[in-house]
């Protein structure tokens, strides 16, 4: 393993890979700084352009993009009170009041340094997990991986919102979509409706672009946001903020550990990690009950280190078990499939060098990201204030071109529009979208594992000890979902129905 880690480090320092990592980092920072965009959308748009790339070049770029958008998302949050991504909502509570009293620079310094330390912490934990969990992964066979796939969809579906039944159903809908095309066993066409385009199945990336990218742009256009000009106080005081991060090293460690933990639980991820970290900081920091929410730098440090550390945590189940820890990781799985990387045992045996390349990329990207943010905050803040109506047509054209890259057929564009409509409807109606992508990604794997399990063990594969344990976990997850459903029902508010509703 150490040899593989050293080889991966040596591979990363080649000028070509560092250059692509840097490009990914810059793109990630720009996307993070624009409210409404972010790593998930950026990753979805970028993947089609890496089809012809070597995985050792594409992986650093994709990881670079993903790792740092929670570093620059602080900029619109602190300056304008608008979170750059869902993972920086808690940062606003103290970051924005700091900016209002002229301490934006200090908030940025603390946030960037905490982000870097959190990101490196996440990468270290990921590296250690490969050692610790490796033997467990190698002991798994097809029945266990089949059951793990079902567990992943159930868990992501259950934890990805307050309506777990919707999450599970939509995950299964993703599995159904994955079955479109030729049956892998006997070559029978399934739901192709005599269309040649559908014989090869739906292209993952086109569906992902439709489900995530276009609905986000549509919502930004609908809202028509225009952010105010960049205030001058974006410049000074960053050194003091950096010192704040080091002075509060114990808080950084606690927040980072919490970030890794939340990130590793499939289905939670970015939208809650900052709140968990902020909450624990408020409970554990001295005098926090009086100062938090009024511009306390510790209220910036805690969520910022956690939201960068979460990517290391989210990569653990993604790489080792093929269960993504977040929506971004589900899209990253799409990239893995396109590159021919199979999550699971191969990632710690034959593809170990790629796994370590991702770990190194994660750590180095966080250093690059912090460095760039420290020097270019005013420029990134200007990006955050671009008018959406200027940005929208550019992104739409790029998304159309990216979708067309999938199979280079006009069918890709039809699929893009159909799934854009579905994605937007799901988002507005409160149906979580990540389980759909997860189902689509895992569909062929789960079906093949089921087929192999039945061939080798018959129906008796369900009685294998580990399979039974995972089955119990699935039942517990669904039970928890039912409990959540009951709780959410209690939140219904009884008001007369208005005509327009």
């Amino acid at each position: 393993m150490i040899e593989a880690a050293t080889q991966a480090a040596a591979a990363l320092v080649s000028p070509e890979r560092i250059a692509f990592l840097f490009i990914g980092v810059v793109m990630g920072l720009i996307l993070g700084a624009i409210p409404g965009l972010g790593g998930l959308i950026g990753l979805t748009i970028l993947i089609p352009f890496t089809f012809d790339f070597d995985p050792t070049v594409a992986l650093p770029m994709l990881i670079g993009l993903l790792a740092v958008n929670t570093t620059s998302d602080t900029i619109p949050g602190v300056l304008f009170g608008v979170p750059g991504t869902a993972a920086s909502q808690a940062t606003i509570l103290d970051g924005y009041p700091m900016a209002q009293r002229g301490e934006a620079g200090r908030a940025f310094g603390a946030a960037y340094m905490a982000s870097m330390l959190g990101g490196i912490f996440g990468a270290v934990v990921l590296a250690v997990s490969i050692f610790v969990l490796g033997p467990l992964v190698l002991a798994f066979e097809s029945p266990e991986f089949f059951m793990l796939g079902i567990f992943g969809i159930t868990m992501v579906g259950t934890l990805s919102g307050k309506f777990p039944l919707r999450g599970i159903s939509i995950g299964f809908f993703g599995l159904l979509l994955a079955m479109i095309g030729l049956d892998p066993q006997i070559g029978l066409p399934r739901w192709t409706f005599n269309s040649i385009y559908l014989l090869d199945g739906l292209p993952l990336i086109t569906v992902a672009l439709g489900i995530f990218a276009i609905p986000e742009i549509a919502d930004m256009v609908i809202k028509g946001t225009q952010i105010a000009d960049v205030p001058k106080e974006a410049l000074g005081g960053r050194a003091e903020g950096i010192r704040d991060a080091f002075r509060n090293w114990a808080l950084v460690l606690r927040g980072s550990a919490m970030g890794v933990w939340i990130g590793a639980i499939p289905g939670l991820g970015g939208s809650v990690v900052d709140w968990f970290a902020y909450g624990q900081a408020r409970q554990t920091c001295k005098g926090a009950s009086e100062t938090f929410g009024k511009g306390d730098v510790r209220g910036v440090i805690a969520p910022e280190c956690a939201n960068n550390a979460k990517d290391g945590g989210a990569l653990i189940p993604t790489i080792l078990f093929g269960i993504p820890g977040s929506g971004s990781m589900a899209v990253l799985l799409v990239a893995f499939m396109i590159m021919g990387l199979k999550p699971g045992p191969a990632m710690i045996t034959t593809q170990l060098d790629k796994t370590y390349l991702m770990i190194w990329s994660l750590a180095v990207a966080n250093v690059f990201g912090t460095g760039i943010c420290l020097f270019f905050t005013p420029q990134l803040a200007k990006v955050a204030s671009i008018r959406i109506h200027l940005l929208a047509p550019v992104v739409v054209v790029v998304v159309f071109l990216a979708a067309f890259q999938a199979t280079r057929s006009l069918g890709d564009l039809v699929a893009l529009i159909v799934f854009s409509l579905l994605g937007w409807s799901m988002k507005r109606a409160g149906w979580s979208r990540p389980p759909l992508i997860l189902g689509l990604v895992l569909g062929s794997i789960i079906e093949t594992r089921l087929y192999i399990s039945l061939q080798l063990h018959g129906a008796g594969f369900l009685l294998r000890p580990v399979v039974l344990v995972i089955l119990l976990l699935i039942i517990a997850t669904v039970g928890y979902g039912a409990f959540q459903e009951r709780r959410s029902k209690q939140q219904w508010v009884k008001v007369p129905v208005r005509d327009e509703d």
Partner: protein
Amino acid sequence: MKIRPTILLNLLLLAVFTFAAVSAWRWPFATRLFVWAISVPALLCLLAQLGIDLRQTNQAEMSENVLETADLPVDRSVPPKLVLHRGLNFLAWLLGLFGAIWLVGFQAATPLFMILYLKIQARSGWLLSLVLAAMIVAVQFVLFDRLLQIAWPEGVLISWFEEIIQG
């Protein structure tokens, strides 16, 4: 009483899963097994969710926080009617771009879309519209045409004109 979008989505999925389960009936066992293994629990989940949603329809509407999911956040500051109006407007632009690609091909459609969107929707000046359109054309040419060597589909109109010219 109007049916909420979530119920419509639920009914759509119910129809899709029912179609999947029924159409798999005539397939060999190995092929239909997986379809049924996922369709049956999905139908049960959807029916349970539909029951929950329908019970609430007459007396209540959901509070904003109930709609929270571990997805990207939804902005609900814009009134629903305006959301629908602007959403349909945006869809029309998407369909327009698709129609233009089908008729005249990618290379002509993308700059045309850029200029029209920026002039009509964004109400930008000619200079900015032309500069942004030129940038997109440059990216399309360098990245897609030269580096990725994409064979662009010919527009239907272009094909017709070529046929007419060739007699």
